[in-house]
């Protein structure tokens, strides 16, 4: 690589416009990725604080620190921010924006200006939600699921946050459109579909869900607003509306949305494991197709959130069956990842440790998903802490942990700095122990019959709640250590090499940090994405 070209055009230092504007008006996909990263971390921090407060409240039955109304707004905001502002944009908006074009050998995404618009919509949507906190009526208290008729009856500020969610949906759709088009149009010569890195495959599948699922929740949200303002009777049972239809429409989006959250994370895992095992991924095509089939089947299972809603028994049966089937492709991925470690040459570095933690925690989360997909058991544990435990395992133990893994994997590339790996590794046991104390207890609580969204509870649940709360403190310690380490590296880190881990996908061929247009000349691709044969020497490896 021509180092002159790189030195002059590093995307971080490049100045196209005066001051901060060269960031806020930049259409460079890498800068937009960083804009997302910064804003997301801020929102995440807010939501995490809310979660932390909720756990404090749960220390004792009855009032501990806040009253019931405040608690209700706490979990609503916690859920909304985590879902709409943190985990759904999450990996696609940050790593997808940053690495998708580089990994397929392109200069940028297909519609760079649209990309920037997505970010602005994201910020506007977030602001809507935040502004509503300070208006007359108080913060929204419906839970992140906005079930009618409560959401059309409550006197809190519902309309503004709903509008915010709508706008965020728009932002997500635009990102999806951008990624699909980019994958179809901007692959480098020789980069066939089956030479794309699996992260790209995952993003591609995700983008399709974003495009075809998000509009449905968009219209649902709009209808709730219309219902509140004009009382048209679409959902309001007092006028003949059917609240269960709302739940259908809501979950038609919101179930696929959980795969919007997890698929990109699975893509990142498929990148990290081969790099540290120095070998090609086991069953490339199967993994690629499992991403597509998760996206596809994931579209057919939404009503497993409604097993007790009063929908028809036929429906319950069909959706339970389909739910079980959607678990299979995820299982295939897990098995393939583990098989990729077989006979590898494994270097246990920080990103890989996070990935191992992910495999364990996500498997627990996913396997308890089977308990929820099963009709008779779900009826008992639905809307209890069992569900709360399930989704924290998959969302936090799954996606968020991989977000951390991805940060540690790509940090040197993104910022050209290296962090202290020892500290990064030391944070993991804290996170692991804290996490399991915090959330595993919730499985037990749930099976014992402790419903969710409860501000107060029966005294017999207290011991478990205390363990859980203490777990949240340990977890916080671990996360602070981890983030602190990265922030320290940002300020004081040693310069990073072009390819610190020995990865073979395209991003490791460009300098750290990458130049403005990524490649001086678009590369020509002649191999599959995880071809380590040259690194290992000619004679070894391939069978």
């Amino acid at each position, binding site marked *: 690589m021509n180092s002159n070209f790189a030195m002059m055009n590093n995307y971080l230092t490049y100045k196209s416009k005066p001051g901060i504007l060269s960031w806020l008006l930049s259409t460079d996909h890498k800068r937009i990725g960083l804009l997302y990263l910064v804003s997301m971390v801020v929102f995440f921090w807010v939501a995490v604080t809310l979660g932390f407060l909720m756990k404090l409240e749960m220390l004792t039955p009855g009032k501990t620190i806040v009253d019931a109304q405040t608690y209700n707004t706490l979990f609503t905001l916690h859920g909304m921010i985590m879902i709409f502002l943190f985990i759904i944009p999450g990996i696609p908006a940050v790593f997808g924006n940053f690495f998708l074009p580089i990994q397929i050998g392109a200069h940028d995404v297909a519609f760079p200006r649209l990309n920037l618009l997505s970010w602005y919509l994201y910020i506007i949507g977030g602001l809507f939600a935040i502004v509503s906190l300070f208006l007359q009526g108080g913060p929204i208290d419906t839970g992140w699921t906005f079930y009618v008729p409560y959401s059309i009856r409550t006197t809190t500020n519902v309309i503004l946050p709903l509008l915010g969610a709508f706008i965020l949906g728009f932002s997500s759709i635009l990102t999806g459109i951008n990624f699909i088009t980019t994958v179809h149009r901007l692959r480098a010569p020789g980069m066939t579909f089956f030479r794309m890195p699996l992260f790209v495959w995952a993003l591609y599948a995700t983008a399709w869900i974003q*495009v075809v699922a998000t509009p449905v929740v968009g219209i649902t949200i709009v209808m709730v607003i219309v219902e509140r303002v004009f009382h048209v009777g679409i959902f309001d049972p007092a006028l003949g509306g059917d609240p269960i239809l709302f739940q259908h429409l809501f979950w038609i989006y919101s179930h696929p949305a959980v795969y919007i959250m997890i698929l990109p994370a699975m893509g990142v895992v498929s990148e990290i494991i081969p790099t540290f095992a120095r070998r090609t991924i086991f069953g490339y095509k199967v993994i690629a197709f499992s991403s597509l089939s998760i996206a596809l089947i994931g579209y057919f299972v939404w009503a497993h959130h409604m097993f007790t809603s009063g929908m028809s028994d036929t429906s319950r049966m069909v959706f339970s069956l389909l739910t079980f089937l959607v678990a299979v492709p995820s299982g295939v991925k897990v098995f393939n990842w583990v098989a990729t470690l077989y006979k590898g040459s494994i270097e246990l570095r920080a990103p890989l440790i996070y990935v191992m933690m992910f495999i364990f925690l996500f498997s627990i989360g996913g396997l308890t998903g089977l308990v929820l997909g099963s009709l008779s058991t779900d009826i008992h544990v639905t809307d209890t802490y069992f569900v709360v435990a399930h989704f924290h395992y998959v969302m936090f133990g799954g996606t968020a942990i991989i977000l951390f893994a991805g940060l540690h994997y790509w940090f040197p590339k993104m910022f050209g700095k290296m962090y202290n790996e020892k500290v990064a590794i030391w944070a993991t046991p804290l996170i692991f122990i804290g996490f399991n104390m915090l959330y595993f207890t919730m499985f037990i609580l749930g099976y014992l019959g402790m419903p969710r969204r409860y501000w107060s509870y029966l005294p017999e649940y207290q011991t478990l709640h205390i363990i859980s709360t203490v777990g949240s403190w340990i977890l916080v310690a671990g996360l602070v250590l981890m983030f602190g380490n990265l922030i320290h590296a940002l300020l004081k880190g040693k310069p990073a090499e072009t390819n610190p881990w020995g990865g073979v996908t395209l991003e490791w061929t460009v300098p750290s940090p990458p130049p403005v247009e990524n490649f001086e000349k678009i590369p020509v691709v002649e191999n599959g994405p995880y071809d380590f044969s040259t690194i290992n020497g000619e004679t070894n490896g391939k069978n």
Partner: protein
Amino acid sequence: MEKIELREPISANQTNDLAVNQVAETHHHKDEVGAKIGMWLFLFTELLLFGGLFLLYMAYRLQYTNDFIIAGQELNLVMGTVNTIILLTSSLTMALSIAAIQRGKKNLSILFLISTILFALAFLVIKYFEWTEKFHHGIAPNAPELLSKPNGEIIFFGMYYSMTGLHALHVVIGLIVLSFMLFFLLRNRINENDYIKLENSGLYWHLVDLIWIFLFPLFYLIH
């Protein structure tokens, strides 16, 4: 790691199906197929947006079959039919406008585009009269007169106002987009060699038409 070499760009037939033979210099070149893909994806989101409402319609029509039939009689079939024809015709002129610019006939294209815009306006005007007439008869959301009717009829009009309202909103947006296109045409920003903008606006306009094709029988032709 040397597996990926930097070479001179290779010829297009070495690339796969749709990947553009993309090199640094052509980076800023317009990718028309790409733009069209983007537009179609956007149309799908619109389709699913309305899809949600159609789903609601299906459920409620099943639940309140008779009320729907009674309420459906109140809509003005003549106005509905005229509006359908207007919208279909506007689609024709839209297509013709693109056909004209493809052949380099700028003035003809402008003429057709203007007629599309006029048809769109006509559609909205008729819609306006239809709605206000209903309002005068007390059939408006939350109006006491409507609320005194059976639940099924309230829902029918709820669906009617939401769906035709959302559709009308799309007509308005289309109107704005088409006006911009007219401006671009006049300024030669859209021309024989570069008319993808007009094509994409056309796609959007046809989608609006398409939605109406279904709304029409579902609301006006109930018996």
